[in-house]
């Protein structure tokens, strides 16, 4: 082996070592930089999500306070006016009236009674006192009885009574979701039978709505909730996000549809 050959061998060895160090250092710097960027990005998306949740929460709160205000106004002002009108109408002397006028008087009284009932129902729907006083299970039972009573829709409600009020806001959001879903079912799916079931697991409330109408699949739900007309579904999704829960629409082999709600709760 000559000295020229030795020099080249030495040069190649040194070059390989230097290249190895440079590449390793370079890759390390690139990886560290990328990881830093990635973590920053994760942090940013976390902040963005937090901000979005805050916006949703504010929207839901303002919607609830507006419902409360309208319910109060209906109950205290319109309800009171109608009740006063009814008193005047009842106290009216009808003896001198003709038979036709007597019939009209009775009809007006009947209509005022119906109006008082309707205002009360709307007011209760907007702000459920049952939910506040007796909790979620009783509010759902009452709501189902009211909405399906006197219709062709049969409903069964099997709720886990171990569930007590965990958080008033959670209960209100769950109640609103159930309300919106059942209203949608009756309006669009035309079911003959609706069954609501709940079970309390480990820090989790599972609610299942099963029906035999023309329901939605998960894909249809995802598609509809982004449409301007799907405001109700959007509200449902917003409340689900706020509760950090999950909603799943499925069609069973039997042809029935289920809507499964999973809500984390603190017992």
């Amino acid at each position, binding site marked *: *082996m*000559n000295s*020229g*050959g*030795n020099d*080249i*061998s030495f*040069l*190649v060895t040194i*070059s*390989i070592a230097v*290249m*190895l160090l*440079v*590449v390793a250092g*370079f*890759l390390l710097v*690139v*990886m560290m*930089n*990328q*990881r830093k*960027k*990635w973590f920053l*990005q994760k942090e940013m998306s976390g902040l963005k999500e937090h901000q979005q949740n805050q916006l949703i929460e504010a929207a839901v709160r303002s919607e609830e306070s507006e419902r409360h205000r309208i319910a109060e106004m209906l109950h205290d002002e319109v309800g009171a006016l109608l009740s006063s009108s009814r008193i005047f109408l009842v106290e009216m002397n009808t003896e001198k009236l003709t038979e036709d006028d007597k019939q009209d008087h009775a009809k007006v009284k009947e209509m005022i009674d119906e109006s008082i009932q309707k205002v009360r129902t709307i007011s209760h729907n907007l702000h459920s006192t049952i939910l506040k006083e007796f909790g979620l299970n009783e509010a759902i039972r009452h709501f189902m009885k009211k909405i399906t009573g006197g219709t062709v829709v049969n409903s069964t409600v099997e709720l886990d009574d171990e569930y007590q009020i965990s958080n008033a806001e959670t209960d209100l959001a769950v109640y609103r979701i159930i309300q919106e879903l059942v209203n949608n079912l009756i309006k669009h799916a035309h079911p003959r039978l609706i069954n609501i079931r709940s079970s309390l697991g480990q820090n989790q409330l599972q609610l299942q709505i099963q029906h035999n109408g023309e329901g939605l699949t998960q894909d249809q739900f995802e598609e509809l909730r982004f449409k301007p007309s799907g405001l109700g579904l959007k509200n449902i999704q917003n409340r689900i996000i706020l509760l950090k829960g999950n909603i799943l629409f499925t069609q069973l082999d039997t042809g029935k549809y289920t809507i499964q709600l999973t809500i984390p709760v603190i017992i």
Partner: protein
Amino acid sequence: MLIPLTFYLIWKPKDAWVKPVVIYLVIAFVLNLVADMIWKKGLPFLELPIRDAFPFLYVPQYTQISNNIFYNVHSIIRMLLFTWFFYKLDPFFFKKLNLAVIPLFVGFTIINFYFFANIIVLPNSALFAVEAAFLLLYCIVYFVRLNKDERSTNPFSESSFKIVSGLTLYNAINLPIFIFYDYLIISNDTYSEDVWTVHNITYIVLNILIAFSFKK
């Protein structure tokens, strides 16, 4: 090359950049297999059939057929397929670089083999070195692009990141070997064999990283 090809068949990735890489792996596997089969009469019964079928492979001064053309062709194909790979990664970013580099590389190859080197007789050190330098340039451009990209993801989960890291390692470490390989063969045969082991190790690392990049 069988390792990444096996992983490709298992995971069947669908990304746009997979095609040039798989084509490269198949061609490289065939070229290396043929080169190994005729290497120093490794399989003597093939000597005459190959010599009859491809008389241009016979080098009179070696009194045997040469497999060096396969290494040279491998280098040209690797360069072209990896420029395609980079183009598939980001057509907008690599289009201009391809327009500049590919004509330069093709021009260099034609001039080199027409005037200075014989594609059949020896593995061409200059070709390998130029190929390594160009691919290294692509790798650096890739990392610069990655660094500029605001929408960066976790680099360890990025498939292309693994391939380009392997390619950077392979080309950077082998660049000095390729530059001096002609001199090493003449002056110090033992060292040239030893240093080729370094090349083989980096090539295995590259193939392992390609294999892992196929995983989703």
